[in-house]
Each structure stands twice: as structure tokens, then as C-alpha cells.
């Protein structure tokens, strides 16, 4: 009886998954082999792998890939370090901890578009708050979003501000799972703190950290809203990340086939990253 009941209970979710995830994915993969513009209409022309070849041969694609990769590497690594440090801090007992926690988490609940607009004002070279203090104390003025070498770190800083608390949350959850008796025993044996960290803490929090890094990497790879609002991919192509390119191909140039192939390539990259991260998680975890 129980075996027979499994399928009817699973069916609604499977249908939902197929209609909302699998079918559109297959549709996009299919479109990626055609020349088709949803605006110009007409019959799609089969191109085989041509869309993929033209993208991979395009130096501007690789430039955008480098930009995206730099953004992800910068944002996720700093989020990990800051989140980790905050996690350790909040794993201790100190006065005001309960008040501080929600304040630390606040950036996570702000809409990225709103955060982008706020930071555009904050970075403003003329009346932004950062430049106000830089001018007042150091007599310098920085054009954060206007200079090619500063724009990407400035945008990444917003992502770091928003998502470090998420890393902290994951780290905190991992630290709570570390058996206290092992730490106490190590303390009694006077084992140095870095040995305690490497041999007791790290093995216990590693799966959670890897998962956090994986989630953040995938999320950072599809960052669009902050970049769109803050720089529009500029100046030049300094902050032109791959999701911006997909958006332009799909909804500005209406090159639907080309946009689909680009989306498939980004999906492939995300899947590749997931596989690498999953390999890093110990099998017993």
C-alpha cells in the first residue's frame, strides 16, 4: 500500500518541476542551436553549434568571463573571510550580542536594487558620504564608479556588504555543531589554538562552509541587479558581467538563439563549479 501511494504523492511536485524547470531548460537548450529573434519572428534557422562557436571565439565573451570571474572571486573570498571572522566573534558570549545580530543581518533583507541605488549615492564623487570624509580628512576624491579600475571592486563591495552576514550565519551554524567536549579536552591538553582550529573546528564546519561558498558562488555568478543599477556594466565594459550580456542579447538585441546559448554556457559553468565544490565535501559528511 505504502509503495503504491508514493507516486500519487510525488506526482504534483514532479509535474511542477517538469513544467517550471525541466521544460524551459530543454526549450532554452533547443533554442541555443537556432538563429531566431523573438522580435523579428520568422522561422528559426538551425545552426548546429554555430552560436556556441561564435561565442567562444569572441574575445569580448572572454573579457566578460574574466570580469565575472574576478567579481565572483573577489566577492565570495572576502565574504568568506569576513563571515568567518564574524561567525567566530558571535560564537562567543558578549554583552549586546542579541541586539547586534539582527543589525548584522539587516543588509541581507534589503532588495539588491535598493542597495545599488543607495551605494550609488554613497559613492557619488561630489556629494557622496565616502568622498565627504575622504575630502575632509585626506583631501582626496575618488570616482568609484567612474574609473575602470575602481568600478568592479566598488560593486563587489556592495555584494560583500550584503552577503557576508549569510556566510556568518552558515559559519555560526557550523560552529554550534562542534562538540564542546573535544574543545574542552584540547584546552586541558594545552593544544595551541591553531591546532585546535585545524584538527577539531575545521573538519566539523567544512561541509557547511563548502555549501555556503557553493551557494554564494552560484548566486554571485548570476549577479545582475546591483551591476545594472550601479554602473550598467560600465565604464566601458569594466563591470560587464555575463548575466548583463545575456540580458542584452535577449531583451535589447532580441537575438534569442544567441542569448540561449550564452545562458547554457553560464549554466554549464555553474554546474562545473558545483561539481568541484561537491568533490571537496568529505564523503562521510
Amino acid at each position, binding site marked *: 500500500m505504502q509503495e503504491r501511494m508514493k507516486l500519487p504523492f510525488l506526482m504534483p511536485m514532479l509535474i511542477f518541476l517538469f513544467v517550471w524547470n525541466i521544460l524551459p531548460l530543454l526549450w532554452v537548450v533547443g533554442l541555443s542551436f537556432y538563429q531566431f*529573434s*523573438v*522580435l*523579428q*519572428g520568422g522561422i528559426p534557422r538551425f545552426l548546429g553549434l554555430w552560436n556556441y562557436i561564435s561565442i567562444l571565439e569572441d574575445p569580448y565573451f572572454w573579457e566578460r568571463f574574466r570580469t565575472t570571474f574576478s567579481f565572483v572571486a573577489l566577492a565570495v573570498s572576502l565574504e568568506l573571510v569576513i563571515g568567518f571572522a564574524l561567525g567566530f566573534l558571535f560564537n562567543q558570549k558578549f554583552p549586546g550580542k542579541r541586539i547586534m545580530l539582527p543589525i548584522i543581518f539587516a543588509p541581507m533583507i534589503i532588495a539588491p536594487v535598493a542597495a545599488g541605488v543607495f551605494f550609488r549615492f554613497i559613492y*557619488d*564623487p*561630489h556629494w557622496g558620504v565616502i*568622498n565627504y570624509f575622504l575630502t575632509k580628512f585626506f583631501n582626496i*576624491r575618488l*570616482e568609484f*564608479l*567612474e*574609473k*575602470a*579600475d575602481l*568600478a568592479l571592486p566598488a560593486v563587489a563591495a556592495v555584494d560583500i556588504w550584503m552577503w557576508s552576514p549569510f556566510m556568518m550565519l552558515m559559519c555560526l551554524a557550523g560552529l554550534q555543531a562542534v562538540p564542546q567536549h573535544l574543545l574542552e579536552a584540547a584546552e586541558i591538553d594545552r593544544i595551541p589554538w591553531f591546532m585546535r582550529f585545524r584538527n577539531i573546528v575545521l573538519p566539523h564546519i567544512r561541509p557547511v562552509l563548502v555549501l555556503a561558498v557553493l551557494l554564494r558562488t552560484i548566486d554571485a555568478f548570476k549577479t545582475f541587479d546591483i551591476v545594472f543599477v550601479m*554602473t*550598467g*556594466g*560600465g*565604464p*566601458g*565594459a*569594466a563591470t*560587464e558581467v555575463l548575466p548583463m550580456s545575456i540580458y*542584452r542579447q535577449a*531583451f*535589447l*538585441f*532580441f537575438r534569442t538563439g544567441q542569448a540561449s546559448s550564452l545562458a547554457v554556457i553560464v549554466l554549464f559553468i555553474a554546474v562545473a563549479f558545483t561539481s568541484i565544490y561537491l568533490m571537496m565535501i568529505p564523503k562521510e559528511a
Partner: protein
Amino acid sequence: MSKTKRNWLSALTMAMVVAVLASLMVAFPIAAEEEVTLRILGIGGWTPSELAVKMGPLFSKYAEEKLGYKANVVADFAPFTSLYEKAASAFAAKSSQYDIIISDSQWLGAFATGGHILKLNDIIEKDPALSKIVKDIYPQHIASYMTYPDGSDEWWGLPQEGDDLVLYVRKDLLNDPKEQAAFKAKYKIDLPRTYEDFAKLDWDTFHKVIEFFNRPPKMYGFAGEYAKEYDFISDHVMSMFWTWGGDIIDTKTNRVRGILNSKVNAEALKYYKDLLKFQPPGAISFGIDQVINAMAQGQVFSALTWAAVGRPIFDPALSKVHDKVMVVMPPGKILENGKFNRIYCLGGQPWVISKYSKHQKEAIDFLKWWYLPETQWEFARRGGNPVVRSVIDTEKFKELNPWNRAYVDMIPQGRDFWHLPCYAELLLIQQEEWTAYMSGATKDAQTANDNIARRQELVLRRDGFLK
């Protein structure tokens, strides 16, 4: 009769009454209750677009009195930067959501070749009123807002509003005797003061003027558009190219190499970058809003931007300099052959009628009403830039708003750029390369223009436009 039977009979009678009423309603619609709702998609935050809707009640009155039907005009707005994707998405879905779309002139090709908008030639030819209107429009406006392909006589839109680049300057400073004396002492020439002085002003002299009034951090000499958003930097840079005697494309062959990346264009691009030293910090990201704001707040002595956005600068509630600004024609350039040359980008937008509209006849009625002299005057009084020459070529119009004279005088010196379906890609390439140059990512002007020429020809070749 049993209670059950009675209930059945009552239900049956009710059903028959409802059916008869419904069929009567279908067969004889109540004409008096019919109201046509015209839906316009326009540019959010853009006065001329908003006026088209705000003046809707006037059309409703006109339609009821003169055309014999009730009409209502409603609007949906999207900012400049996302209007194209909203309009194009509606067209791609073959949606009847919008009857009229305020498009940008460069989109005509994409919408026309996709078969999404009405071709207007037959409609105009068969309608004496519309034919008369078209004859009363500047040829530059016909080429810019109505025609695709360029140089053909195929018409797809009509001008909703005209616009061009004009120069806003501080007349209080120009008329200050102390400033005039100081300028004369420094440069040995007179400070331009009047509209007529600026009409013959070249960039070399204007450069001295903005250098003279550049007094940071209190006031800067100039503000122009440099942002990557939409077409902001392109409109200004292309204006510099044309004024310097250069061009961006061979319209017969669509060749870009050797034209856009000419030596004179590199010189003009470098000149436009050098102007940044007279502008407020962050001017590299200045778009229309920032330029207006800088002028209205008294942050700059002069601003090069659109005639259509002049209103806030003259609004006492928004501007610190509302009574201190004069609108003039932008500077020209004395070319090597000694000719004074001034060609700037045309702005403004056409409106097009959706092929999927269920109210095409009423949309045409609306457009015919729009070009009536009284409607065009009302549009002008509310701050819009009409296009009908019998209105705008009058002295009364030129004196109505501070920017009107420069707007009209600049029309013959205005030029539009490609209307090709691949315009969005061509535009993004320019926006990317020129902002890269302005921000220092690309080191010299020639390289930036070479990159554009190469990349644009790839797109034009791919889409079969390169001859």
C-alpha cells in the same frame, strides 16, 4: 403544482430571460455607452511623453464633439533605458496592449522589419489632412522620425515631439560688466553676451569662456553627457564628430571603417574628453538628469543638453538659477576650409501605431488631432516642442519658452543616426568604447574609434547590411 415543479419552472423562466437579454445585448450593442480607450506607451519622467497623456482629456472632448464617439487616453510609462525592451516585448508577444507607442527614432527599423507597426504611406496619401500635416514638417524631422530605410520614402511614424541639443548658459554672469572686463583683459576678446553672439560662436572661443568661468569647487565651466546609459555619450560625441566635419557611417554602403575612425573624429573625441577638466567631479557618469541638475543648482556655468528638458531649469521651485539662464545654439567649428560648421544630434521621438491595436482608426484620429494648430500650441504652452512649421516657425512660438528659439534654429543643423534593426548593438558598442576611453581604460581616442569601426562592421556584415 408541486413545490419542486414550481422551482424548476421558475429557474427555467429566469434562464430564458437571461438568455434573451444576453442575445439582445450582443445583437444591438448600446452605442451610447461605447468608449474607446487608447493606450499609449511613453517615456516615464519625460515631459513631452507625459503631456501626450495629460492632454488626453482634450482629445476626449474633441472626439465626442467632432468625431461622434467617446474616447479616453491612458498611458503606461517606462524609463528611457527600458522603454525599448518594454515596447519590443509587447510587439514580440503580438499584444494589443498598446495602440500607440512613443518610440525612439532609431527603433523604426527593428519595429518595421518585424512587421509590428503600421506603414503610414497609404494612410497619409489617402488623408488630405495628414498629407497637409506632413508637408508642414521639416525634412530633417521627416527623415529622423518617420523614415525607414534611410533615404527612402517609406514612412512608419510621425513626430510626437521634436528636440535637439542646445546650450544653456548663465546670462547673469555673461552680462556682468566685471566679468566682461576680466574676460577681455585675459583673452583680448569680448565675452559673448547675446543669442546672436552665440549663434556665431566656435568651440575655440567657447573653450575660453568655460575655462574662464571654471571656478571649482563653487562653480564649473561646463556639463555634458558622458554616461554609458542608453545613448547619452553617443549623442554628444557624434555631435562633436559632425561639427568637426567627420561622420559615423557611409549611409550608402554602411561602411564604418575609414569614416568613424577618421583622424578628425579622433581629434573631436579627445577634445570632448578634455572638456572633463571643466566639469564637476563624477561628470563621466553624467546623463540627462545630472546635467540638468548641475545647471539648475548653479553648479555649472553652461550645460549642453536637450531643449525638451529645459523646463526644470526655469522652474523657480526646482532651480536656483531659474531667472539667470539663456538658451542658445551650441558652438560650431571653423573647419580647415574656413567654413563654420555646426551639426548636432536630433533628439525627440516619433510615435508609431501598433499593428496589433484594436483601435487603429481611433489612433489615427488621435494623431490628426495632435497636429491641429490649437493642439500644437497647447503642447507648446505646456512646455513641449511641437513640430508643425506653421506653429514653430512663428515669432510668437520662439518667444513662448526660453528654449524655443534655439530649438527651432537648430532643426536645420540637426542630424539623426542609423535606424537599422541592429541599432541597439551598434549603439552599445559606441557606448562601451567611448566610456572606456573617458574612464581611462582605453588610452587613446584613435584606438577607441578603431575598435568601434571594427566591431560595428562585424555586426553590419553579420546582418547583411554591409555593401
